[in-house]
């Protein structure tokens, strides 16, 4: 049975576990989008909830929702982890290549429409790889989590104008990359 999460920040461990189950997917999706790798995303999820537990006394529901607070920690942990990793090929790229391989195997069995859609998605994912670290969180929060500009501004602690400009810039880069990929194909 899922317990109430109400007292999680008062130190109730059962409530904390319920809180984890309620928010793990949300945190997981965001983490995965920032780092682009399942294993790393799991590490981030762990770090996020451990941090949340350790700083439970600093969470103030009057100042913002739990989801906003968790998103903020996730983005911070995700970015900081990403910076620590200094690998020549970005993990996003590795993931995309891996995904391409899987898709190639499946192509023969897929319905034509699905194949076209997959190729489209693959192009978008490849274009996403070209996005700089500061643009990924805004794109994820907007087009995956479907949050409002105001909510994104609160989570990332940047002004509304910056949310707009980052989204515009991210979209400009994505479209440019999509064009380049298309030209190559």
């Amino acid at each position, binding site marked *: 049975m899922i317990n109430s999460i109400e007292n999680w920040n008062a130190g109730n461990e059962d409530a*904390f*576990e319920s809180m*984890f*189950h309620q928010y*793990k*997917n949300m945190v*997981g*999706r965001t983490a*995965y*989008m920032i780092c682009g790798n*399942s294993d790393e*995303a*799991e590490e981030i*999820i*762990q770090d996020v*909830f*451990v*941090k949340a*537990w*350790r*700083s439970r*006394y*600093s969470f103030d529901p009057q100042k913002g929702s739990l989801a906003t607070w968790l998103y903020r*920690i996730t983005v*911070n*942990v995700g*970015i*900081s*982890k990403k*910076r*620590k990793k200094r690998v020549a090929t970005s993990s996003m790229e590795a993931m995309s290549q891996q*995904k391409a391989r899987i898709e190639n195997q499946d192509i023969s069995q897929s319905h034509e429409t699905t194949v076209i*859609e997959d190729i*489209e*998605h693959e192009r*978008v*994912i490849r274009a*996403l790889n070209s996005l*700089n670290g*500061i643009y990924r969180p805004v*794109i*994820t929060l907007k*087009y*995956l989590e479907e949050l*409002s*500009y105001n909510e994104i501004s609160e989570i990332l*602690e940047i*002004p509304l*104008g*910056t949310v*707009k*400009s*980052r*989204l*515009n*810039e991210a*979209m400009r880069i*994505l*479209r440019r990359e*999509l064009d380049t990929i298309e030209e190559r194909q």
Partner: protein
Amino acid sequence: MKCDEFTQLFLAYLDDELALEELRSMELHLAECRQCQNEVESLRATRKQLHQALRLKAADIALSPELWSKIEQRVKGDKQPESSRIIRSKSKFAGGLKMLKELMFRQPKWRTATVGMLLLALIVALSITIPLLGGDSNIALAAEQIARDSETFGFVTRGEGDLTLIEVVEQDDDQATVTFATETGKHMTFHVDLNLKKVIEINKWIGINDGGYRPEDKMEKPEAIRIARTDPMVQEFMAEGPVIELAGQFGPDHEWIVHFFPGDIKEQPVRGGKYVLEGLGVRVDIEKQEIIAVNKGTTGVSIVQIEYELAEADREEAIDIVMDNPTGTGLIGQGYVVESVKRLPADFQRLVDVILMLEEQTIVQGQSFRVDLDKKEITDIDELVMVEIPVSVVQIGIELNKIEKEEGIQIANDDPRVQELLSEGFAFEEVVHASHTSGERSMSLWLMPKDKKGRSVLTEDGLYRLDGYCVQVDLGEGKVVSIGDLTKFLSPDDLEQE
């Protein structure tokens, strides 16, 4: 509005984020502009593709069933809040902060380097003068967590090994400083705002004595200062106003020298690239718990040197030494450039940091070479993360991107006082210092004369003095907060280049 102005709003339009007024004019415009209609449709298609691709990709993630047990295990191994330490600030530090704030407003030219250095000195002074007290351990933990959670934490601590929490100092206005010691013997202090849950400033430094860190310094410094403060001359000196205290181990291991300088060093003369300070030097024997000598005199203190005032000879000498080093030569070959040369706050040695950076990176990374000019050798090579401000003050938020800089210039351009200065032959310099001081987003824009040669004055030190203005912009409020005087000192070569 013209088409290109609407273009900036297309995404917000598709995201349902336009204000009513904007929405109306957008729809009116789209109704009559075929080109913009096409553009919106194309953007809509990309947006849809992106949305679908992201959902598809996110669906790939499968969380392992052991995830919770791993978290539970880590959480159970936590130390209890009682193990953290906190010390409380005293009024002296508040006075020091006030002085810093005044400096920031009155003397913009000091902002970049000196404030960081002074803060460092004050933090050092504070941490060595006030004993550890039992305090509100929750605040200590919260402060530590804010520091660890900050965007910059991972970045500035990279390669430093495990960090040991040294102390958390609660200050006025719900702020605290959290100091860690690194495995490499450095100290890092995160100045955090407990309400905003943000890091406001980060200072990173190596032991203030001879560059080498000795664990016992932490213990002996407060002792040295305590003994020095018992001297009547020191007490008299301190009664006159805020002081800056610098302590360093000197001579035999148990001997220390503690310097007391007036806090208002901005009023003091500059000579040979150093600020000449009149103060007291107290030699102390820690073992015997006694004062060996007290000297009143004038000392050239490099702590307050800023980049522009570093003597030309020192600069070239330091760069030459770095260029002779294989790592230095290698980096130059890879496109690194000398970003800055600055004197360290080491009292008794001519220590200089030569910083090589890769050009045009938003998050600036490079290598810092610590050069001992007396020994003519490199004593340390360090990876460096710095953002714009050429001292160890790392701005929060990592960087303000170009768009935000443009935003600052745009706000300044709307101010009538700025417009007047622009019409008087001043122009914005490329140097734009952006910072997130006190949890607010602000920006300093430098307005300097376009005709630098014609409007500079040669000083006794052989440097050219150039007077301009520093425009402080509050990006959050969208207005110019203050316009202060700004003085730059340029070497003849710098002037030629500019």
